[in-house]
């Protein structure tokens, strides 16, 4: 019926433009969680466990309750006493009590919540809550947790996501395997077999906008303001726990990097608000964020069989991810990375084992693609060892093994738009791979170059919530309101969606208004994680505009008394196609249209993912990831052999982005990912003492990358349109950080001849490595 399905010209897509909100951010006018208030709100302070593992003998909050200005204290007794409050939450793994019930499982575990009229009173009263603990043996790392007879962090397992499979009677809360071919036969056919073990310690995301929540219960309805990255799953979890409707509102978020991807404070503060009978606000301190979610400790044992020419014929690797005291986030994110643990290579015979293990560390969460980051570092570092051993050029050995379009991935997926070879060549070229390295005349500083290649999945399907929807509405004054669940966390999502919507409608940016992440104002979306929004939300937005257009045409047809089929969309409105001008009235602006209809016109669009892919060979293939992002990084380092200090001098990353919706935004995402990952690669790590106490939870003791550690960046991208993506786009927000460490480890190997099997590359470790090599 529609002669006009819209101009669909790309005028905004492909343009570099600063984010829509950049001027307000530069002016300091954007409100983040810490800037929000609600009338009548009280303030919370959380009483946290000082011990990593202990049974709670008693809690005496009477002194705290008696303090003037204290509203209430929430402990396990109040939770028990409320029949309309479920005790345990977690929408991936349901193992986290609102407040500790029988025992605490990590330092900083939540024991009680003190609510008072002001923050100072809440803090003072929290000091008065007397908790008696019976200390239990703690398992502070994966080897301890897996040891014979180790204490169990949880006695029972409650996985929610169907793919999560615990091993009863152990601390393994999830074990899964992926594979292809016949691994034993593959190793039998190999000319050489290499075995390595790689490790990386926990770090924290250090998003500057502290995780915070305001919870209000009014007229039997919960309203929660939070900077969580998953508003809809959180809302459903609140509704399940409190048995009443819940609205979740996310303001602009000052970074998350995965630390806010799951709930850890929203449900418990809502319980406190219910008890208090008034809204309650809670803002984590920077120290508390280090005990709320961390990037997990990681270990990978990797065995690879190769032919003499460097062709990989077999791979078996096992990796262990330390999910900490609660698996509310870490278990599934570990499992997801099974899909990419073999890397962007053709491996005919492969097996990967993933173990997610409870310990008494704080809970883990994803960190900008982790653990894909550590997988990449592991297989790339081993690859350089193999190349050196076999005397094969490091780029050439990768060229011989990188996947191409039409290859079948270890998941069974039919790979398309891979372009992994182009990424490799682009990244190497961008740092001047073949140019001679500068030589230090004193011979104290060594230079080297390294390269690394990766493949990254996106969340597919979003199992706990497979809906990904958007709504587009023509509202007053001819503005198109684009309603999306995507959280604006600094990645530029509002801008990308406005570009996509603008082109889908054939209108300019000034005709677009974005409404984001309010569960009562926008349709459902799973989460803002896993580089998924540009693809999934972008597709939903395009479909919403497709569904809106017939409505607009129908309305215009009635107004103009013309056949809908004779009308076309223009940048300003709808007009008759056959050249009829406004003179004869056969045109209506969008503003007039909505005014004369007398109500907004709105339509939703969905992005349904999963199912099977129909390959060009006529066969059906599973879709383990809606799209795959490929990338390569080439880095140049300088190693000071006297101090052991490593400096990343240059870092180039090239990623497959599909159509580049906002090219400069892509480049700055790559720069940001690389710049952030410099820290965990060179100097960041969380350290626990023998008593299980985290000793560097404060920024004074925890260095972060600064402008002084910044390398010369060379961001690149391969922008062949991706079939199925909105205007051919796919996601890439995490890929810069994912691909860096492998390149740096390999560059240090190139410079020094020492292959380091763990990060960070701390100066004393580098010196030890150099000394061991000299001996």
């Amino acid at each position, binding site marked *: 019926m529609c002669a006009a399905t819209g101009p669909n010209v790309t005028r905004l897509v492909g343009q570099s433009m600063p984010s829509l909100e950049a*001027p307000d951010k530069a002016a300091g006018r954007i409100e983040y969680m810490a800037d929000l208030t609600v009338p009548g709100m009280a303030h919370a302070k959380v009483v946290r466990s000082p011990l990593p593992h202990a049974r709670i003998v008693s809690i005496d909050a009477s002194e705290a309750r008696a303090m003037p200005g204290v509203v209430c204290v929430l402990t396990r007794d109040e939770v028990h006493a409320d029949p309309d409050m479920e005790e345990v939450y977690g929408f991936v793994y349901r193992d986290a009590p609102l407040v500790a019930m029988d025992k605490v499982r990590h330092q900083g575990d939540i024991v009680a919540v003190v609510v008072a009229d002001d923050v100072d009173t809440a803090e003072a009263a929290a000091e008065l809550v007397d908790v008696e603990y019976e200390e239990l043996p703690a398992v502070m790392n994966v080897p301890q947790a897996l040891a014979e007879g180790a204490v169990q962090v949880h006695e029972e397992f409650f996985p929610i996501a169907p793919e999560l499979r615990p091993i009863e009677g152990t601390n393994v809360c999830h074990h899964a395997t992926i594979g292809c071919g016949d691994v034993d036969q593959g190793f039998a056919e190999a000319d050489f077999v290499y075995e390595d073990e790689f490790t990386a310690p926990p770090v924290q995301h250090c*998003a500057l906008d502290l995780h915070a929540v305001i919870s209000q219960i009014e007229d039997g309805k919960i309203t929660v303001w939070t900077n969580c990255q998953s508003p809809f799953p959180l809302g459903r979890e609140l509704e399940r726990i409190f048995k009443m409707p819940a609205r979740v509102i996310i303001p602009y978020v000052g970074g998350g990097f995965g630390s806010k991807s799951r709930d850890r404070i929203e449900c418990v503060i809502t319980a406190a608000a219910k008890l208090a009978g008034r809204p309650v606000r809670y803002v984590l301190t920077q120290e508390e964020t280090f005990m709320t979610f961390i990037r997990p400790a990681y270990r990978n044992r990797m065995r690879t069989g190769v032919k003499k020419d460097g062709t990989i014929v077999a791979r078996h690797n096992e990796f262990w991810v330390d999910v900490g005291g609660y698996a509310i986030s870490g278990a599934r994110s570990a499992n997801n990375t099974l899909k990419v643990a073999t890397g962007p290579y053709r491996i005919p015979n492969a097996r990967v084992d993933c173990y997610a293990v409870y310990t008494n560390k704080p809970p883990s969460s994803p960190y900008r693609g982790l653990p894909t980051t550590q997988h990449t570092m592991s297989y790339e570092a081993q690859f350089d060892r193999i190349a050196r051993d076999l005397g094969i050029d490091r780029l050439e050995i990768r060229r011989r093994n990188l996947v191409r379009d039409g290859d079948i991935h270890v998941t069974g997926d039919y790979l398309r738009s891979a372009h992994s070879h182009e990424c490799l060549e682009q990244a190497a070229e961008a740092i001047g791979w073949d140019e001679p390295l500068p030589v230090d005349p004193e011979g104290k500083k060594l230079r080297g170059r390294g390269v690394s290649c990766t493949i990254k999945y996106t969340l597919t399907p979003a199992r706990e919530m497979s809906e990904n929807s958007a709504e587009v509405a023509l509202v007053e004054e001819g503005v198109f309101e684009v309603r999306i669940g995507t959280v604006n966390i600094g990645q530029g999502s509002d801008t990308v969606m406005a570009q996509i919507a603008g082109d889908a409608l054939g209108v300019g940016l000034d005709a677009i208004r974005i409404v984001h992440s309010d569960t009562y104002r926008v349709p459902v979306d799973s989460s803002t994680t896993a580089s998924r929004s540009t693809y999934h939300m972008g597709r939903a937005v395009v479909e919403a505009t497709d569904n809106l257009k017939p409505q607009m045409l129908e309305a215009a047809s009635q107004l103009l008394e013309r056949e809908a089929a004779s009308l076309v969309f223009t940048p300003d409105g709808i007009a008759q196609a056959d050249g009829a001008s406004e003179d004869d009235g056969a045109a209506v602006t969008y503003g007039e249209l909505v005014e004369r209809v007398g109500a907004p016109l709105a339509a939703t669009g969905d992005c349904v993912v999963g199912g099977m892919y129909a390959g060009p060979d006529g066969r059906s293939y599973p879709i383990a990831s809606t799209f795959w992002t490929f990338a390569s990084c080439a880095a140049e380092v300088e190693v000071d052999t006297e101090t052991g200090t490593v400096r990343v001098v240059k870092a180039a990353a090239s990623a497959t982005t599909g159509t580049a919706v906002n090219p400069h935004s892509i480049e700055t995402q790559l720069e940001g990912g690389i710049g952030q990952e410099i820290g965990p690669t060179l100097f960041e790590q969380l350290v626990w003492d023998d008593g299980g106490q985290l000793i560097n939870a404060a920024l004074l003791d925890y260095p*972060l990358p600064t402008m002084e550690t910044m390398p010369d960046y060379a961001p690149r991208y391969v922008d062949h349109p991706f079939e199925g993506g909105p205007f051919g786009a796919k996601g890439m927000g995490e890929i810069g950080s994912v691909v860096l460490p492998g390149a740096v480890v390999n560059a240090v190997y190139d410079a020094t001849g020492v292959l380091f099997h763990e990060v960070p590359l701390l100066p004393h470790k580098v010196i030890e490595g150099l000394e061991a090599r000299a001996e």
Partner: protein
Amino acid sequence: MNVTLTVNGETLSLDVPPSTTLLDLLRDRLGLHGTKEYCHSGVCGACTVLANGRAVSSCSMLAGQVDGADVLTIEGLTPDEGLHPIQQAFVDNFGLQCGYCTPGMILLAKALLDENPSPTREEIIRYMGGNICRCTGYAGILRSVEAAVKERRSWS
């Protein structure tokens, strides 16, 4: 205790508890939310403001220490219409993503340019190295400050 200071050109006389930091005073008493808080230990620079033209971490400064001082926050830098050239440089050069460190970064850049109107790249890096940004990898910030230096002649 009583503190008298000038904030964004307005002289104020306030009674505050002695433990009040300049950050608390700005955010909680005056509602100037453009100044941000993260580490509360003088490390990250999110709370950077200018006191008598010098960049300071307002979280680590007691209100009593700025008695008599002239304080400039991001609200004071922002003109009634449009943006200050440094702010515009951050917008045009993708010098921000989440925007949380941005007010502090922009004020630090203002202090630098007031002190040294034509800094070299190395001088910019050394001066700006004190403030933390988690999103940009600093490249966009460096480009922004360099662009602002180039524009320096058009404002002063």
